[in-house]
Each structure stands twice: as structure tokens, then as C-alpha cells.
């Protein structure tokens, strides 16, 4: 059964990292409901992505493994539901 998940990811802020991340989702036909990508305020060489995804728990776990495999990706976490997305995106926007 598909449901909403909030995906949080930290990575090096290189060209094409975001494309690699999205490619993993597209290839598995995972719906991205919302997305926010940002540079880290304190260090532009690092950045992060926040996504609201709609998929199954099983697929979410596999996506996490695939994302962790990406060379520039440092940390991946996901949370059930969209509440975390709302809270985190407000923090990111607030920081800007």
C-alpha cells in the first residue's frame, strides 16, 4: 500500500548529484509530491534535499539503500508521513 514519506538527504553540493538522486526515483516510478533542494548556509560545498514521496514502505527502504550508494551522498533518512517535511521545509526556508 502506497503512503507518504519524507526523505531527508545530505550530500556534497556537486553538479549532477540532484540528477542522480532524481534518477533513482524516476527509474522506480516513485512519485515526488514536493521537493526542496538547498545549499548549506555555512558551507556551500555541501547541500541537502528534502522530498515528500508517495510509495510503498518496501520501495522506500530500497530507495534509501540505493541513495546511500551514491558516491556524493553522505546521509539518508526517511520518516513516515508528511509532517516531517512541513517542519523541516519551514526550517530550511527560515534559514534563508
Amino acid at each position, binding site marked *: 500500500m502506497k503512503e507518504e514519506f519524507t526523505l531527508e538527504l545530505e550530500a556534497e553540493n556537486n553538479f549532477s548529484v540532484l540528477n542522480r538522486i532524481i534518477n533513482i526515483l524516476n527509474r522506480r516510478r516513485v512519485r515526488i509530491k514536493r521537493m526542496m533542494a538547498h545549499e548549506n548556509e555555512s558551507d556551500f560545498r555541501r547541500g541537502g534535499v528534502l522530498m515528500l514521496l508517495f510509495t510503498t514502505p518496501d520501495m522506500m527502504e530500497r530507495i534509501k539503500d540505493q541513495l546511500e550508494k551514491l*558516491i556524493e551522498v553522505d546521509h539518508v533518512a526517511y520518516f513516515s508521513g508528511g509532517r516531517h517535511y512541513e517542519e523541516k521545509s519551514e526550517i530550511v526556508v527560515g534559514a534563508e
Partner: protein
Amino acid sequence: MPDKSNLQQMDALLTKLKENQPGTAVVRKKITGAEVLLQCLVAEKVQTIFGYPGGAIMPVYDALYHYADKLNHILVRHEQGAIHAAQGFARASGLPGVVFATSGPGATNLVTGLADALIDSTPVVCITGQVFAHLLGTDAFQETDVVNTTIPVTKWNIQVAEAKDIPAAVAKAFFIATTGRPGPVLIDITKNAQNEIIEAFDYVPCQGISTYRPKPALQFSQVDEALALIKNAKKPYILAGQGVLLSNASEALVAFSEKTGIPVACTLLGLGCFPTDHPNYVGYLGMHGNYAPNVLTNECDVLIGIGMRFDDRVTGNVQKYARQAKIIHIDIDKAEINKIIKVTTFIHADAREALVALTEKSLPAKHTEWLSKFAALSTLEYDKVIKKDIGPDGELRMAEVIHKLSEMTEGKAIVVTDVGQHQMITSRYYKMKDPRTHITSGGAGTMGFSLPAALGAKLAIPGRQVVAVIGDGGFQMTVQELGTIMQYGIPVKILVLNNNFLGMVRQWQQLFHGKRYSFTEMQNPDFVKLAGAYSIRAAKVSERKNLDLALKEMLDSKESYFLEVVVGKEDNVFPMVPGGAGISDILLEEPKAS
């Protein structure tokens, strides 16, 4: 007392002054970005490069002119040939294969090989030229967005637009390609970066990347969990994949199997990781694999997958796969664990480390009765399939050719297969004895792979007999690489099994599509004349009585040699797991028409 940062600043200043003093100054040579690249490759101990020049990589080729004593460049006939040759080189030697190509079509011609190398975990470093940085995104001549095009088919890629960034990119590329689960990487270098003149540099090989953890530490708690299952198993069974070869774990696998008495089957890419003449070897597993290992997958009580990824050609219908078994998965790539098959427990580690730990802690055991079950089913397969395959009447059959080849080379040649019936037949009938002697396109199933991969393998291991086994369809996909073989006198042997059909598709059409042979029959050229046009010695055999001598002549030749063997047009490969069927529903022969 000055603080530490002041001391460092002073130290830097003094060093600078020292360099600037007349007579003591270190005069650093100025070189182009292209030469920087070549120096990096030399520093990485690269000796062989497969490539094809073009406009956007001309500065690199110009610099290469002066590096002929250090870098052996092989001019292929198509970029796809370059990357498959690099794959063959890498798979035979364990070293990374290196490829040069130009921008636009040169780079996009690499895509098939990149996809092939990614799924088959082959370390390849591709360098592509790119248009000038100021032309990026302007649809300039031969401009393609190579980085974005190759994202799904590379382990990592990068575009470099300044010469100073080349050394770090090359160092990272080699580190990433060869560590963890190996894979292809690509560096796209703009032409201005190749032309740019910078000061000579000190190359620093990459030792690590903060966000990349290629070698997981062996967790002894995981080893203990696996051991608990193995200790109580009555019918344990090992499936060995290419990960065993990649981690140089063949000896460790033999030691583990011998101590625990556990039978071993190999996947297609795992062939060669366990000696085929070992008493614990029970066969090759997969859609056209041996009968016993397929059937008994659904009877074992503990299944140990090592360095393999439960590919659909191995599992058949996953809903019917080893439901009764407790499954242990050993793999260096965490994303492979629980991807297809939910496992009971796993060891996330390098295969060799895991096997050494398991062997050390496991108790000696024998599973004689269980092994005899494999033997009984193997006898059944022999009677129903193998006996007819290797000792037939009538037309020549693919299996008897490969069986003879295996006998005549004593299983010691490196065999490089393409994709299709001949590939499955070679996997079944060529009895590999050593690691890295079986090279094929497994996950991607790339027709046209064999010929260039074989020439790459021969250049990597020149002292070993290398035989490319190819169907008539696949041969014509990269046939132009005969030119490369001719130009460099690469003594590779080419064995084409010609049935004038795209045989595997035809077999499926026969069995599952009412024998409607839709566009699979091929009218072929005179292959012997074609090889002759490339000055390659060639022969054709169509009668059984001439086969032995023809094979002997091919194998004895000190030069490249082309042998066409005309085989039965409707020769089929059995056993076979039909699409959607469970692995134990494997058919030994063609189903009777109802």
C-alpha cells in the same frame, strides 16, 4: 609564543622564499591539461588505453603522440568496441580498463558498454572530450550532455572545465571504479581544459572519499548469525557469484566448502570462481543452467548466496524461489541485500573476508546424502540432454563444439562469449578451471560484446589462449573490430557458431510463439572471405569429421584465427526455465505439443 596558525603561515612563507631564491628555485614545467591527464594515467600505472579520436579530444591525442613509450593506445573501430575491449581487459586482469572517446556521438557510443559494465561490476575509466566550456549548452557541433546522459549507467561521473581539476578527478575516478563493488566511471573534459597550460603538479592518488564507504567492516555478529544457520543445516547449498572473483575469494570459497561439505553452484558471472572438477561443484545455475542446482534450490534448507544479486535469470519466479529455505546473503553492496529476495540473515562485507571468518569458525561437516541428490539429478540431465548434445547424429550441434573446445584446451583458455544460445551452451559445456577465465555480458546481455572484449582480454593476459565464442548475429554487431585485431596483430581466436538465425529468439519463437519465426533468420555474408579481407586466417567447417582438426588448427595458430562452424539451424538449448516459471519447473526437453 606564536600560536600554531602563525607558525604554519610562517612556514609557508619561508618555503615560498626558499623557492624564489636564485639558484634554489624549483622551476616547474608548464604543461597542457591534456598532458596533465596523461601524466595522471601514467601515475595510475595505466599501460593500455582503448580509444577513438575526434575533434573535442584532439589535444589529448596530440599529447598522446609523445607518450607512445608509456601508454599503449589501441585504436579501435568504434567507441562501443573500445569500451567492450576495456571491459574484457578489466575482467581478465582485475585492473581497470581505460577508454578515450570524443564528444557527442563518440561519448554516446559508450553508453551500452557503460550500462554493461555497471550491471556486471566492471572497473572502467572513460575519458571523453567535450566542447569548449563557453559552448556548453549552445548545441555546438558534437555537443551532447554526456554527464547527464551517463548518470544512470555510471557509478560516478564528472565534468572538468579547468586543467587544475584534472588530477583530482582522475584520482577519484580510479579510486571509485576499483573499490567496493567495482563499476564504470566517466570524466568529461572540456577542450579548453585540455588546452589550458598549467604548472606541473604532484599526483596524489585518492585514498578515500568522506561520503563513500566502499569496504564495510566485517561484523562478527552477522558472521555468528550465519554460522548458527549453517551449523544446523542438513541440506545447505552455496550459490557463488562474481563477487567471489572480484574479491579474489576463490581459494577461500574452496576452503569453506571443503570444511563444511557444502555443495557449490555458480551463477553465469560466477563461473570460474570454483573449479568445475571439484567434487563439491554441482553445476551452473540459471535459466539454461544445470538441472540439479536449479531443482534443488527449492529443496535446500539453507541457501548461501555469495557475491551475487539474485538476478531474475537465477531466481525465475521469485514467488516460487526457495520458499522453504533460510537464506544467507553475503555481499559488499548493501543495496543488493533484500532487493529481490528477502533473506533470513546477511553479512554485509567483502566476500573473501566473510568466507575466511566463516571457515575459521565453522565446524567440519559432510553432506554426502545431500550431494548424492545432486549427482542423481545430474545423471538424469546427462541421459536426457547432455548425452544427445555432445554425441549427436546429423547436423553439428553447438554443445559438441564447445565440449570439444573444452577438452582440447583442458578448460584453461579464457573464453569470451557474446549473448544468446552459444553463450548458454558455452556456460554449460566449457569446464572452467580457473578464476577470470570466463568473460561474458551477463546482466545487460549485450550482443556484440565478445569480439572486442576478447581482444581486450588477450592484451591483458597475452600468455593465455583467448577464444571468442560468438553467434552469427552478435559477430556482425561489432565485426569491424576485426580491423583492430588485424592492425595490432592480436592473436585472439574467433569461433563463430553459425546457425543463420538469431538463435535464442528463434528458440523462444518456436516454443512460445507458435513457431512464428518473425525476423530472426539471417542471410549472412561469406564470413571466411570477410575475415580474409582483414588478413585473418580463416576456415569453415560444417561436417563432424572435420571438427577436431579445424579446432586444433585454430588453437595451434600463433596468429589470430577465425573459425566458422555451421551448426544446426534449429538447435535448442535445454534445460530451460520458461518465463514466469519457478526455478524448479526447469524443463529438460521441449514440452510435448498437446
